[in-house]
């Protein structure tokens, strides 16, 4: 009863105001049983493949072909093979270093460029902005093979340098998001700083950067996931025995004759995907806010 009292108070306060107020009792009981059911079914369908992945990863190699829903025996030692059959930890280290390096560089670099586009005027700006939008349409694949030839020319194949260079150049998508976000700030923000004698770089570092935290998170997570998930660039630019997890897990787990080992593939895929999911869950709130703040204001 006491609980009921508590929930009723805000209702009385809110409802007369206007249509935007959400009566609290909406959250108390499922108001839309049909929508609830649809979302539940879709969610379960989305997650089921992960369950199948876990189950498959625990089938013993002798029984990978059994057609039961659950394995007859849970073979936990599969995971030992997953990390020893291929140099898993070396690949994982490469993935972490490259993804973090690229994400850090591109998050900062895109913010710098986005600030320039949003807050400074110069001849040729519209042309360059048009170029930015056009490069968003150029697929990775179109530039990657010629870029690979370029990197090979400078002896950068097999090193981390390509990712450093890509990171420093910034990502068009992230630049666009920053530009939209920074454009929404009032002019007075800078004018006050200029009165205090601050230069452009200080204004950017001390005012704009701290205010864009959700967007920094969004850009970092997007960039990290891009490199973590990229199969094509490391496949071209790194040695097969010193590559990233994407390539290692994608190509690994076959025995000599080339027959795949589905249980180990499942285990490898699971270990490979878990960090991405954890990163997303940890950053989810800022990530969603980053999108809401910037992607839509035109």
């Amino acid at each position: 009863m006491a609980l009921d009292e508590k929930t009723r108070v805000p209702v009385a306060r809110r409802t007369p105001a206007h249509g935007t107020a959400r009566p609290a009792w909406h959250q108390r009981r499922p108001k839309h049983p049909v929508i609830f059911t649809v979302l539940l079914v879709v969610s379960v369908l989305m997650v089921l493949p992960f369950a199948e992945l876990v189950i498959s990863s625990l089938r013993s190699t002798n029984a990978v072909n059994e057609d039961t829903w659950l394995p007859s025996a849970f073979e936990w030692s599969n995971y030992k093979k997953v990390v020893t059959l291929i140099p898993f930890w070396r690949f994982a280290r490469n993935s972490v270093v490259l993804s973090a390096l690229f994400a850090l560089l591109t998050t900062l670099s895109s913010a710098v460029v986005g600030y320039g586009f949003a807050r400074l005027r110069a001849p040729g700006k519209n042309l360059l902005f048009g170029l930015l939008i056009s490069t968003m349409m150029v697929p990775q694949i179109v530039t990657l093979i010629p870029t690979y030839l370029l990197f090979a020319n400078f002896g950068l194949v097999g090193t981390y340098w390509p990712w450093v260079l890509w990171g420093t150049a910034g990502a068009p998508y992230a630049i666009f998001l920053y530009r939209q976000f920074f454009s929404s700030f009032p002019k007075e923000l800078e004018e006050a700083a200029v009165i205090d004698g601050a230069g452009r770089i200080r204004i950017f570092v001390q005012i704009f950067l701290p205010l864009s935290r959700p967007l920094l998170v969004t850009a970092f997570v997007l960039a990290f996931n891009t490199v973590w998930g990229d199969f094509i660039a490391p496949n071209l630019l790194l040695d097969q025995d010193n590559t990233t997890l994407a390539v290692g897990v994608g190509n690994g787990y076959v025995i000599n004759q080339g027959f795949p080992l589905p249980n180990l593939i499942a285990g490898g895929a699971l270990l490979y995907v878990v960090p991405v999911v954890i990163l997303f869950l940890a950053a989810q709130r800022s990530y969603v806010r980053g999108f809401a703040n910037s992607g839509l204001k035109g």
Partner: protein
Amino acid sequence: MRLQRVGTAGPAKRRRYGSSKGEALAFYGFLSPWIIGTAALTLFPVGYALYLSFTAWDGVSVFKPWVGLANYREVLTSSDTLSSLSKTLLLVAIIVPTTIVGSLVLAVLLNERVRGRTFFRTLIYIPAIVPPVASALIWKVVFDQNSGAANRVGAMFGVDAVNWLTGNRAFVVLVVVLLWGVGAGIIINLAALQTVPMEQLEAVKLDGGNALTAFRHVTLPVISPVLLFQTVLVTITTLQTFVPALLLSPISTGGGDVYTNIPNANRVYMVDVYSQFFAYSRYGYGSAMLTVFFLVIVVLTVLIFKLVGRSVFYAVDPTASGKG
């Protein structure tokens, strides 16, 4: 103290704001990483690929024999290339409408005050962040002929086990892999739905319109720019489909010509490009294919803007339109 500062602010302000030369210098300073990077890593490679497309380079020789338009003539007449292009366009025709409508419907449902909607949103979005390598391997396991769940479900309905990863069925699996990421658009859609003015939705209801009328005449116009942006993005990504097609193939050992393992139904355009470059060392022809590919993207983007763009409604939010 304070007075002193204000006193020095005059010239400082003129120097930084008044001089457009200084501002232009700052602009190009801030943009320099991107300008240099784009010139070296995007514009130069695109130009180089364009040059290679007029040669018959094998990727190794110093000499790059000039062949004029021969590569382009072959791209437009080769039955292999046209078949891979049509398969890619079929993929786009299936994936793009389903993904756009699907993620819109899901976002609208998630926008309702339903219990556990944050939880549902997370679960539906997670497949969209799963890297293509992992989603290909996950579905490869699910559709495995012997131990996969797909055939176990089939067995429950008395259907014999089939090999999903060969023949035309492989294309079905490829579609499933791509559709699994249907939630990719829900976060941006949900953000867009927050900008729909409640008062206007209420007004439609007061005029006797139902929820569908309100959606059609208020919600849809407001979020249409976001939908247009997504349609272009999903089209471009779907055209580039490569990794799932490669990793779904029955055996990919990483050695030898891995591309021949890919069943014909999944030999989409990018698979064709890769085998031209790395299996047949036809760098000139592959580059011509990439140029044609880029033109296809441009044409499709223009088409989308022409067909969909007409019904896109800008400048609903006065604050948004002002900033352009």
